[in-house]
């Protein structure tokens, strides 16, 4: 293990924090007001600081790849965070091959989205606030992936939640948007409790929360035997945390609402980075999860069901961002499916390609929304292709990638997941079926989205048409970069089957990740492997293409849009109302909590606890009034009492009473 001391991780982390500080404190001071920072200044500052981080991330990437040793890493211990009573948690950062990739994604896509935002948010009020949040988010997200112990990971974990809350509710004057932010934070907190419990259990069992130490201890068979009884509980608790942050069943409900934030935020936080935190956590702790087949099976099933469920909802959404939101939930489900069957590498691979194409699709949708004067309803779009050529082209590439059309990036990663569900020992055949169905759904709703937005007849008003414009270069540039990545990114993980035909091109990602996230050995070997893999690959690409193009062609016809909706009215209604899950939660959670709280404060506190106290007071007063009877102020009465008392005393002394 080659462990290099390097200040790079600290600098990568610090840079966006400085950017945050400048935008949050210094620029408002300089311009004497919060809303007064010019958009370009705010955006420029924020972009340069995250861009600087990206440069440093590149350097550390090169350092890592040129470093010797089995598992090289760049580590720095910044300062002592907690250290008392046997709890020692240093503020220690570490970039290894897994976090190295994530740092690149976060800072790279982060920079692009900052750049895009500079133009997208140009005419908003309080741009400084926006960019300070965005920088703060990057800080926390980087901390999440670089933190070398679980509490630090949790620091970032909660921190990104905060930034998500702040950014979803960026337009806070609208109650609905503020509510969406609040919902995201609270639902995430439910997951966070699971994370905390998992962490506490792990501390109880292992006595440490440092990630390398945990993984080292888990390599010791004695320790493994000792902790075996509680390992499933630990994994499941941690997974509860993952379901919150990564929007899985049953805690996914916040993510669709989170779309009320600015679109670049959705691209960065709710597609490319934050929501993948759960996948990262599981990949990071893969030696732990490996110990519990039951927990893994839960992960796989939750992932698969979420993927299918969210995919089906996405079909009926008319809001372009909602389609993408449910699509994200669905794709994250795919990643968990991969984790659950033990294909952690594949999960990370899909995390990466998904970051490319989903960020691209979100930014593209932002460009569309921008062009349509803020309209998000796809039934009021159509035929935008000729007005938005760049957006159309890049989004088409993104769509092809997410649909799994060969040889775009999504094709490779999705295929690997599908194949893993049957090839790996943890896989089950019906999970494979669910995966395939979801893949078909994905291609279909993506095609539908493209069709409703760019093709067919125009359905927008004259007013919208008047303002229709392609986005400026500052916005289309990131789109093209991401489109390039979405198109070609998959070649980092070419499967052996294809690699052999491409001049023995290796699975770069797998080789890279192996020291941290070891690849599972496939049980089926030899020629059969190729046959199976080939079949899956061929079948899924055909299905993807058919369903993608049927999605496009079906929804090109304006008539069909309406017809379909009316023909399947009941189903459509259920789907577009998202299976009424929000209503259900409202009924079983929100209302009872409100009732309990009203009961606590209104009844118990008022009529029991307080009544008891005041009751004692009243009783004391009553007794006092009773005793007042004796306090007549009449000397004769007092004298009589004295005499009686004296008499009693005498009787007592001479024990006559006894």
């Amino acid at each position, binding site marked *: 293990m080659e462990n290099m001391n390097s200040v790079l991780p600290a600098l990568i982390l610090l840079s966006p924090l400085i950017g945050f500080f400048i935008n949050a404190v210094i620029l408002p001071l300089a311009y004497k007001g*919060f809303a007064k920072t010019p958009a370009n200044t705010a955006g420029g500052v924020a972009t340069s600081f995250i861009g600087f981080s990206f440069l440093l991330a590149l350097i550390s990437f090169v350092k890592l790849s040129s470093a010797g040793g089995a598992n090289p890493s760049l580590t720095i211990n910044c*300062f*002592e*965070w*907690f*250290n*008392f*009573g*046997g*709890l020692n948690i240093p*503020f220690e950062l570490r970039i290894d091959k897994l976090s190295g990739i994530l740092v690149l994604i976060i800072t790279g896509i982060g920079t692009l989205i900052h750049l895009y935002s500079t133009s997208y948010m140009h005419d908003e009020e309080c741009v400084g606030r926006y960019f300070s949040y965005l920088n703060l988010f990057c800080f926390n997200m980087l901390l999440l992936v670089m933190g070398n112990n679980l*509490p630090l990971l*949790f*620091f970032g974990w*909660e*921190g990104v939640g*905060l930034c998500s*809350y702040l950014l979803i*509710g960026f337009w*806070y*004057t*609208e*109650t609905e948007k*503020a*509510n969406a932010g*609040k919902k995201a*934070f*609270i639902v995430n*907190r*439910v997951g*966070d*409790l699971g994370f*905390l*419990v998992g*962490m*506490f*259990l792990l*501390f*109880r069992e292992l006595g440490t929360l440092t990630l390398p130490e945990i993984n080292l201890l888990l390599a010791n068979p004695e320790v493994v035997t000792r902790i075996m009884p509680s390992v499933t509980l630990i994994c499941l608790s941690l997974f509860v945390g993952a379901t919150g942050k990564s929007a899985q069943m049953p805690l996914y409900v916040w993510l669709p609402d989170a779309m009320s934030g600015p679109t670049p935020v959705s691209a960065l936080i709710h597609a490319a980075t934050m929501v993948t935190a759960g996948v990262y956590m599981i990949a990071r702790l893969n030696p732990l999860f490996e110990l519990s087949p039951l927990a893994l099976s839960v992960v796989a099933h939750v992932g698969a069901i979420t993927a299918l469920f969210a995919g089906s909802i996405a079909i009926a959404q008319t809001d372009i961002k909602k389609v993408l939101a449910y699509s994200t939930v669905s794709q994250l489900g795919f990643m968990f499916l991969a984790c659950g069957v033990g294909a952690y590498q594949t999960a990370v691979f899909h995390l990466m390609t998904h970051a490319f194409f989903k960020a691209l699709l979100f930014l593209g949708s932002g460009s569309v929304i921008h062009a349509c004067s803020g309209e998000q309803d796809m039934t009021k779009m159509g035929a935008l292709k000729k007005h938005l050529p760049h957006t159309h082209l890049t989004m088409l590439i993104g769509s092809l990638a997410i649909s799994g059309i060969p040889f775009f990036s999504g094709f490779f990663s999705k295929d690997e997941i599908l194949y893993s569900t049957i090839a790996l020992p943890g896989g089950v055949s019906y999970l494979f079926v669910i995966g395939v169905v979801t893949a078909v759904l994905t291609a279909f709703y993506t095609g539908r989205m493209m069709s409703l937005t760019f093709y067919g007849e125009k359905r927008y008003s004259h007013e919208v048409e008047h303002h229709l414009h392609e986005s400026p270069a500052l916005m289309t540039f990131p789109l093209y970069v991401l489109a390039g990545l979405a198109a070609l990114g998959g070649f980092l993980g070419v499967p052996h089957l294809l690699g052999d035909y491409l001049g023995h091109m290796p699975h770069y990602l797998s080789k890279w990740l192996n020291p941290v996230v070891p690849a599972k050995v496939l049980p089926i070997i030899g020629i059969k492997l190729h046959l199976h893999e080939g079949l899956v690959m061929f079948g899924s690409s055909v299905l993807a293409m058919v369903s993608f193009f049927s999605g496009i062609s079906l929804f090109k016809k304006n008539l069909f849009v309406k017809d379909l909706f009316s023909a399947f009215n009941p189903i459509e209604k259920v789907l577009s109302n998202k299976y009424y899950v929000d209503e259900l939660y409202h009924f079983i959670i929100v209302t009872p*909590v*409100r009732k*309990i*709280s*009203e009961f*606590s*404060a*209104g009844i*118990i*506190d008022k009529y*029991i*606890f*307080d009544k*008891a*106290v*005041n009751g004692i*007071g009243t009783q004391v007063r009553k007794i006092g009034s009773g005793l007042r009877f004796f306090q007549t102020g009449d000397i004769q009465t007092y004298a009589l009492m004295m005499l009686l008392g004296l008499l009693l005393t005498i009787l007592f002394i001479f024990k006559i009473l006894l």
Partner: protein
Amino acid sequence: METTSTLLTWIIFTPLIFSFIALLFPTAFEGKLRTLTLIQTLISALLATVMYFQFDGSLATAQMQHFMSWLPDWGLNYIVSIDGISLPLVMLTAYVAPVAILGTWPSHGVELKKEKFFVMMLMFLQTGMYGTFLASDLFLFYFFWEVVLIPMFFLIGIWGGKERIYATVKFFLYTMVGSLLMLVAIFYMVKTSADLNGIASASFSNLSKIPFAFDNRSLLLALQSPQVLLFLAFALAFVIKVPMVPFHTWLPDAHVQAPTVGSVFLAAVLLKLGTYGLMRIAIPFFPQAAYYFREFFILMGVIGIIYGAFCALAQTDFKKLVAYSSVSHMGYIMLGLFSFQKVAMAGSLYQMINHGISAGGLFLIVGFLYERLHTRNLSDFGGLSKTVPLMAIGFMIMTLSSVALPGSNGFVGEFPILLGAFQVEPMYALFAGTGVILGAVYALKAYQLVMLGPATRTDLDHLHDLNLKEITAMIVLTLFVFGIGFFPKTFFGKSDSSLNVYTSTILEKVGTNEYQ
């Protein structure tokens, strides 16, 4: 080796001296009384800071002792000293005081009735608080403990809201009745000590050495053994002050009626007198009894966390919401203290400080709003953050601290408590953990109702943002929020050895070394 110094005595009595200066202040200068108070709090803070730097963090014993004979025949001595446990609390008092004064500075034209008496009471209160934290003699402790009640009684009773008389009498009687049994217990302890040693002495060092008889063969026998009786007598006095459910109902009333500065002191420092008492006296003097009843207090702490949060959620009065949130957050301290686990007990001490900062800050915010809009009703606000961005930021920071976000001071308290408690009492800790969720629910609800959403009021034109004094107050608190959040070691490092010895001694006495 014991160092002798009069510094602690100066810290205690500087406010009192200033209150005499205030008393003799010519009427013509009455407008300057606040400035005088500010100067006093700053001097106190300075003295405390000097003390902080003189404090030797490597020592686990009491330092800077100052001893004066008072009524030696009765075992009454004036002994003050400081160790790592009282140190953070004294510092909290010293820094919260100027913040509270700055943050509640009356705006121009608002004449407070009996200003002179008001500031005198504030100074008097500080003497009481410093004294309680620094006393090393049980009588002296009791003396200061009761002294605190008097200025608070007047602060609520004279300058409070509409129901102030009801609230202040309730507050006074409740806490007073609670401490009566404590006084009886003190007498018993001093008598026992006199019988044992021949001389009466109420000093902590002397009394803590007496092993009071304890019998745990049955609950009934336990309840008759001196140690348990003494413990319960002290515990009752302390948990009322904390306040622990179900003895908490005085708190919302007192908070709502108290003037802002009173609320700040009440939440930031006064409640900690209760947990400090538990930590300083009830638990170490009667460890077996405390350990015997630990589960009861943990249960009550956990109930407090959840119940307090639920009550907070239902409030429409902003100040009451913050008051109930205090009930909830103090529950964590109970959980930590009675879990008899090193990390959790240390976390409890940190939580005392952290709650002081966040609750103090939140009450300041309530005060800012009340002074400007003359309402505390949550439905009367909405969408203010556009008009008062600075206040919105301050409020947000205090909210984050209150929901214990990592990086803020709140996390530094709650995380060790939950982690430590989980090692010994996982089920209770799990339930306490739901407070993490509920805490976010009510805190964000309050924030949203006040700051976010569409503006509901039309009279926002005269709503001005924080002035320089208020900004200063919030900045000081903010520095502590993030300073402690990121560098707890820097702020609490000097408590380490005291805490270590403290917890190991107790754990040794109760004979548990599980998961330590």
